[in-house]
């Protein structure tokens, strides 16, 4: 295999594996920018994968090829609602946000596998779906020599949507009044409150948006990569997205880059057997890489990551 073929495999695999991470990590950006820690990303993603697969299985006879897109919509709604539990606990009940996140992760796994067993007669995993998200060749762009082969051939559309979304999120957070309020609430809620911003409402909105995006991320993973759902479909993807968000310093575009990089590391793990130097490395090291890098990033060896100031602190009116 020549160099270009290998490169084409890796770029395609990277676009594949990074899309779920990008969606979920962008969700994390919303939540944490508003000051709510979101360890629940893992569970919200898992719930999205569950809803995505189950609704695809139940609807695909009726709706055929568009089913996966409907499934993404349901996953967004489902995980959005599920995330409101996290919001309720951590904003209204002033629970420790990390603890609440842990509870959500437990609950997502319990409820989805419980439901799977209920729906599919005691089986712990679902059948495989028939309709996956279509791989497409982007017209015109895919005809460009070399670049077309590398980036625009047989990649699921969701991968491109994820990338475009990162720029949209960047615009929302840094260029709109909503984004300014979101950041204000995460940095200094008391000041924001004084300026007439409804802190509670902003945080609820942010957490629910993060749930919706994580749901989409999970469903994209399930529908485009795994093709079915079981208790191990989402195992660590959500935490990896969390890592990408931190590695990207809570910035949408940084998060995009980090998620793509982590996707690349995963892709190397998958396609590593074809690549001369990488194939001699134990694949375990590649799988570990994103996590180790995140620790280094936090420590400041790879540029210091600063969290929003009010992250993790429940807002109490009048408290200084």
């Amino acid at each position, binding site marked *: 295999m020549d160099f270009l073929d290998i490169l084409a495999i890796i770029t395609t695999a990277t676009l594949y594996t990074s899309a779920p991470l990008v969606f979920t990590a962008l969700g994390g950006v919303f939540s944490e920018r508003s000051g709510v*820690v979101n*360890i629940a990303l893992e569970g919200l993603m898992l719930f999205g994968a569950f809803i995505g697969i189950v609704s695809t299985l139940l609807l695909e006879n009726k709706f055929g090829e568009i089913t996966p897109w409907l499934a993404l919509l349901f996953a967004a709604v489902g995980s959005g609602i599920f995330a409101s*539990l996290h919001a309720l*606990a951590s904003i209204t*009940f*002033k*629970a*420790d946000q*990390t*603890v*609440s996140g*842990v*509870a*959500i*992760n*437990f*609950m997502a*796994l*319990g*409820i989805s*596998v*419980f*439901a799977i*067993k*209920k729906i599919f007669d*005691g089986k712990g995993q679902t059948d495989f779906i028939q309709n996956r998200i279509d791989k497409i060749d982007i017209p015109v762009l895919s005809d460009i020599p070399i670049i077309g082969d590398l980036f625009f051939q047989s990649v699921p559309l969701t991968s491109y949507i994820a990338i475009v979304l990162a720029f949209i999120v960047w615009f929302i957070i840094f260029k709109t009044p909503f984004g300014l309020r979101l950041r204000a609430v995460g940095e200094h809620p008391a000041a924001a409150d004084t300026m007439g911003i409804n802190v509670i409402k902003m945080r609820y909105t942010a957490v629910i948006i993060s749930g919706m995006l994580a749901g989409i991320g999970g469903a994209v993973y399930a529908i485009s990569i795994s093709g079915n759902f079981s208790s*191990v479909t989402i*195992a*660590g993807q959500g*935490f990896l997205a*969390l*890592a990408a968000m*931190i590695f990207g310093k809570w910035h949408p575009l940084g998060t995009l880059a980090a998620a793509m990089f982590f996707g690349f590391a995963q892709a190397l793990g998958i396609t590593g057997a074809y690549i001369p130097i990488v194939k001699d490395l*134990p694949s*375990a*090291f590649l*799988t*570990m890489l994103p*996590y*180790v890098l*995140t*620790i280094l990033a*936090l*420590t*400041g060896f790879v540029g210091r990551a600063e*969290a929003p100031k009010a992250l993790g602190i429940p807002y109490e009116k009048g408290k200084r």
Partner: protein
Amino acid sequence: MSKISTNFTNILIPVFAALMGLLFGALIMLFSGYDPVLGYTALFEGMFGTPRAFGETIRAMTPLILAGIAVGFAFRTGLFNIGVEGQALVGWLAAVWVGVALDLPKPLHVTIAIVVAAIAGALWGFIPGLLKGRFGVNEVIVTIMLNYTALYLTSYLIKRYIFAGNEKSENIKESASLQSPWLSEQFGFSRIHYGIFIALLMAIVMWYILEKTTLGYELRSVGFNKHASQYAGMNVNNNIMYSMMISGGFAGIAGSMEGLGTFGNMTALTHFTGIGFDGIAVSLLGGNTAIGIVVSALLFGGLNSAAPSMNFNADVPSELVRIIIALIIFFVASSYVIKYVISKYSKEDK
């Protein structure tokens, strides 16, 4: 609030949370077409119904006590150690490795295996402790990342160095085992092992360190108020490191219970065991106190070990137990509301 009512609240909240968890669990069974009475009867029978069931409950609660005190110790000193899972994996591997590689007389071999497990866990806890103490890095994120690192690293090391095929490590030598045919026979040939005594001993150690030593006093003080402790001349950074190392040490021993007691080897895992995460639930429900942790480990250990028999006898999917545990954490975490109601009520009383 007076001292009595504070104590009352401390007991009331976990009991309330556990009851709410069970209540919601019953509702879930009801709405998904299962019989809650049958389900809970089967669950209870599976926990305590026979000597064997009780033996399995004790077996399941052993690592949970240790994971619970690991989480609880860190909590008491103001740290959130989500990394118990990873520290337990590292301890598990270390214990098994000692059990496989060394050749020593019985009591010495077990003891060394457990001590090495504790050291391994402590080293894994030292990393987030150092990063928090020296660089101010949030320990929650670091420990999550280290969990995955531990998962892949232990799996790699097993396959590379002590692999026996079928995704498992070699078996430990008899001299390193905590298993006891005699004890097992008393409990209907369940997998109960001597580890339970170590776990209970460690619960006492946790209580002793926190309540009776200068170190424990300092650690709790740092947990209450970092700045005041600093001002009082305590070395806050070092205390954070010590706390994470002690917590990691307990977690490492938790892992060794699986390696030396339950299984006698270690699987090259691809997914977490859940011990560390259950430890969070155990510690929270137990109010982060030694005695509370032992009691709630009994509950969660029992729930976990009885889940399959509930599935078998009442046809309820065993994941119901996961949901109940999640709900209990949720309600303990949301205790602000309960406290709020109580404080309002007691104010009106005056």
